């Protein structure tokens, strides 16, 4: 989840002197060390053939260049799933096209040393030069434990380096040790691989190393007594969820206003100073208007990612998974899927990537298929626009604002649909019988470093901006072209009966004869039963690339009709032809249909792209697109019919 979204596929990083792999159990602090070694130049991708993420980076020490790779956390090298087999294959060099690593950095959490020695024994049996990095030694001491790293080094036969990652201690020692990797001492004899012999070995090593286990973390126990309490814990959990949504609306608003002001100011400047009117239009409306409409949500996205990173860094997410496991289990998933779905409220892309924490491939697929149904932040501008057309701001249902209620209902609809979808996909997949046992470690609460939070926020924000800069920019420019081509000369305009001096009439004519209009009309048979007009069709088609463009597209269309008052133009828009000619387009049934359409349709190329990358095949993203489109059409049609009936019933005396 903390990886950057939309990261490129990893490629061999040119010539390196050695390949170093980081291996260790989850929660040992491995990724922290990886980040400190590689800085910001890490890339994420996938291992060939599996939905397992791969992080690589480079590091130069003493003019030697190292490729550093962060393997997924493992508890042992005996795989129980194809994903875990990938880790074992990576270590033994059995992955196609990827050779054997040169050296290993084995990251071990000093507070769970007894359990970790099982992995240590297995890793040392690989007979690769290995250095053992001890993390969280400060926490061990703070909880009354003890350990002598020098004695541990003697007992194991490999170099042991103490690292306190959040203070940066020991990183320099680790870095300095890397160039001499071929000369690292190695154990004379393999540790026993299991059974009573391994337990005896573990006991002996721990005793020699002066190991005293840490007492259970009192602070964690005290906090969990509240946070995992059946009553208080659930209340806190509900509060955290509500806070999450408050962030979406309340806290981000002032920041969003600032961004809006900035962009409209820029657009003004463009229109004033750019000499060519078409260029001014392109830059001002398409680029600034389109992209600006998306960047406006950056503060919101950042705040949401901040909250998720914070909760995850502290360790609350595993508590959330624990609390929600039973509920998730009802649809065949597990607690960690909740975290992935929760992240999807910000954006489905990090949510889909968060499914990497799920050990079961079937759970991952099911959650990925469901994640786009969670109401992501991209739907918000669409909902806000459409709800504004449907319900007046002053409408109230008792003490509650109807607009807010409708928004809440849409969120609930998305969440419930996601759960049902996950259940269906999981049930349909049950063929190969690979049932994974549920187990989850609950680490103590730890205070995350500002650095790690900043890094994960940067990753998500960078990905979001990249999406803006590429897909959305390209789409809005393309759309602008489609809406304004073919060009008409003054003579052609006069021949069609339009006065070239009348801006309003000209824009309306341009729009009507544009390429976009042709496309919109061509798909009318599909969307007519939903009450969509060809202009709405254009908007819907455009939004297939990214939902945010729907608002920009309608904005462009409305400006064409009435450049001074686009909002009113939208409300007043009427069908130009066909069976409903003269009626307002945005009637209640149509708006309701549009809203439901947006709840269900998969309208995000970025999501399709990340699904393709995470599953390694086009099959799943295409299935997702297909089933969601059908759901969207059916749902919109039902909504249209239902609201039509309701309006008719209400209008009857």
């Amino acid at each position, binding site marked *: 989840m903390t990886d950057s979204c939309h990261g490129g596929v990893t490629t061999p990083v040119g010539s390196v002197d050695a390949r170093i792999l980081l291996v260790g159990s989850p929660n040992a602090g491995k990724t922290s060390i990886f980040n400190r070694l590689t800085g910001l130049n890490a890339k994420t991708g996938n291992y060939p053939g599996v939905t397992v993420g791969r992080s690589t980076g480079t590091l130069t020490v003493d003019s030697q260049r190292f490729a550093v790779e962060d393997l997924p956390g493992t508890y042992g090298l005996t795989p129980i799933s194809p994903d875990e087999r990938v880790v074992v294959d990576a270590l033994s060099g059995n992955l196609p096209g990827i050779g054997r690593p040169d050296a290993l950095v084995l990251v071990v959490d000093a507070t769970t040393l007894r359990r970790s020695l099982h992995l240590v024994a297995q890793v040392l049996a690989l007979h690769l030069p290995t250095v053992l990095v001890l993390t969280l030694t400060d926490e061990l001491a703070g909880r009354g434990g003890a350990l002598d790293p020098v004695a541990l080094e*003697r007992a194991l036969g490999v170099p042991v380096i103490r690292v306190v990652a959040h203070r940066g201690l020991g990183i320099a020692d680790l870095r300095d040790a890397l160039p001499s990797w071929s000369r690292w001492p190695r154990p004379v*004899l393999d*540790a026993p691989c299991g059974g*009573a*012999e391994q*337990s*005896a*070995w*573990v006991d002996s090593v721990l*005793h020699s190393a002066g190991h005293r286990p840490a007492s259970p973390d009192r602070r964690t126990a005290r906090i969990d007594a509240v946070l995992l309490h059946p009553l208080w814990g659930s209340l806190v959990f509900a509060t955290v969820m509500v806070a999450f949504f408050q962030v979406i609306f309340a806290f981000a608003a002032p920041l969003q206003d600032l961004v809006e002001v900035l962009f409209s100011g820029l657009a003004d400047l463009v229109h004033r100073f750019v000499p060519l009117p078409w260029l001014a239009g392109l830059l001002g409306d398409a680029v600034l208007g389109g992209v600006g409409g998306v960047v406006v949500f950056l503060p919101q996205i950042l705040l949401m990612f901040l909250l998720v990173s914070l909760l995850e860094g502290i360790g609350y997410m595993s508590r959330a998974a624990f609390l929600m496991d039973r509920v998730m289990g009802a649809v065949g998933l597990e607690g960690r899927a909740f975290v992935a779905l929760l992240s999807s409220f910000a954006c489905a892309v990090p949510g889909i990537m968060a499914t990497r924490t799920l050990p079961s491939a079937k759970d991952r697929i099911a959650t990925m298929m469901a994640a786009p149904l969670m109401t992501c932040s991209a739907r918000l501008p669409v909902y806000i626009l459409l709800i504004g057309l449907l319900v007046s701001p002053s409408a109230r249902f008792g003490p509650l604002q109807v607009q807010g209620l409708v928004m809440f209902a849409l969120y609930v609809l998305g969440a419930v649909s996601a759960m049902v979808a996950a259940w269906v996909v999981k049930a349909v997949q049950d063929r190969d019988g690979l049932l994974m046992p549920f187990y989850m470690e609950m680490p103590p609460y730890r205070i995350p470093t500002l650095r790690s939070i900043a890094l994960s926020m940067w990753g998500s924000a960078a990905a979001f901006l990249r999406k803006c800069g590429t897909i959305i920019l390209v789409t809005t420019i393309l759309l602008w072209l489609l809406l304004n081509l073919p060009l008409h000369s003054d003579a052609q305009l006069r021949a069609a009966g339009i006065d070239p001096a009348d801006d309003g009439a000209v824009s309306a004519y341009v729009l009507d004869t544009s390429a976009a209009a042709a496309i919109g009309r061509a798909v009318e048979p599909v969307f007519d039963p939903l009450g969509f007009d060809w202009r709405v069709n254009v908007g819907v088609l455009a939004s297939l690339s990214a939902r945010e463009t729907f608002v920009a597209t309608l904005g462009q269309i409305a400006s064409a009709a009435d450049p001074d008052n686009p909002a009113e133009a939208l409300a007043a828009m009427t069908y130009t032809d066909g069976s409903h000619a003269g009626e307002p387009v945005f009637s209640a049934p149509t708006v309701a249909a549009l809203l439901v359409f947006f709840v269900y349709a998969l309208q995000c190329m970025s999501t399709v792209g990340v699904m393709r990358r995470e599953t390694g095949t086009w099959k799943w993203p295409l299935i997702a697109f297909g089933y969601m489109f059908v759901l969207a059409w059916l749902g919109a049609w039902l909504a249209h019919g239902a609201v039509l009936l309701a309006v008719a019933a209400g209008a009857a005396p």
Partner: protein
Amino acid sequence: MIPTHPEAVAGQPDTLRWVIPAGILTVGEVRTAPGDLGVMLGTGVVRRIRVDRAGVLIALGPDALWPAQGARVRAALHAALEQPGAWTLAVCAPDPSADDRLYEAAETVLAGAAGDFIRSHGGAIDLILARDDVATVRLRGACAGCPAVGFTLQARVERDLRLLYPELRAVRAIALPRPGKRATLTGVAAFETAT
């Protein structure tokens, strides 16, 4: 199963010290051992077995290598440790060089970081006796009679000394008497090795 793990022995690549808890086997040169361990000793796969205070030193024979024989040695050792009474030792004079080795190791330690620490506090430390795996030292100067003496000795001197001489049993300290008092053995400064 008795906990044990192998550690390399400096300068002797054919030997591993299998660390075991103290008190299971008596110290000495092993003549026969029960089970497969005895078989290996008899057939020359294992050249020599010696028990010291830190563990069981097992040296492999000329044609044997640890990667190949290690698993067998480990299994045999585990089995043999279940019958400590069945081990027999060679009738042996105490290892004559042990005391010399202890003496040299102790002198090295006192000349090194541990001694520097004491000297930096205005004290002085001399080696009085090195015998039977016990080193006796004398503290002078500011360190004599200091309440932190016990802690200093355990933390620094004993640890450094045990690195060089793993069979160390204890480090004892004598403080120089003040005028009018007899020399006393600071009993609190005598530490047994961990059991």
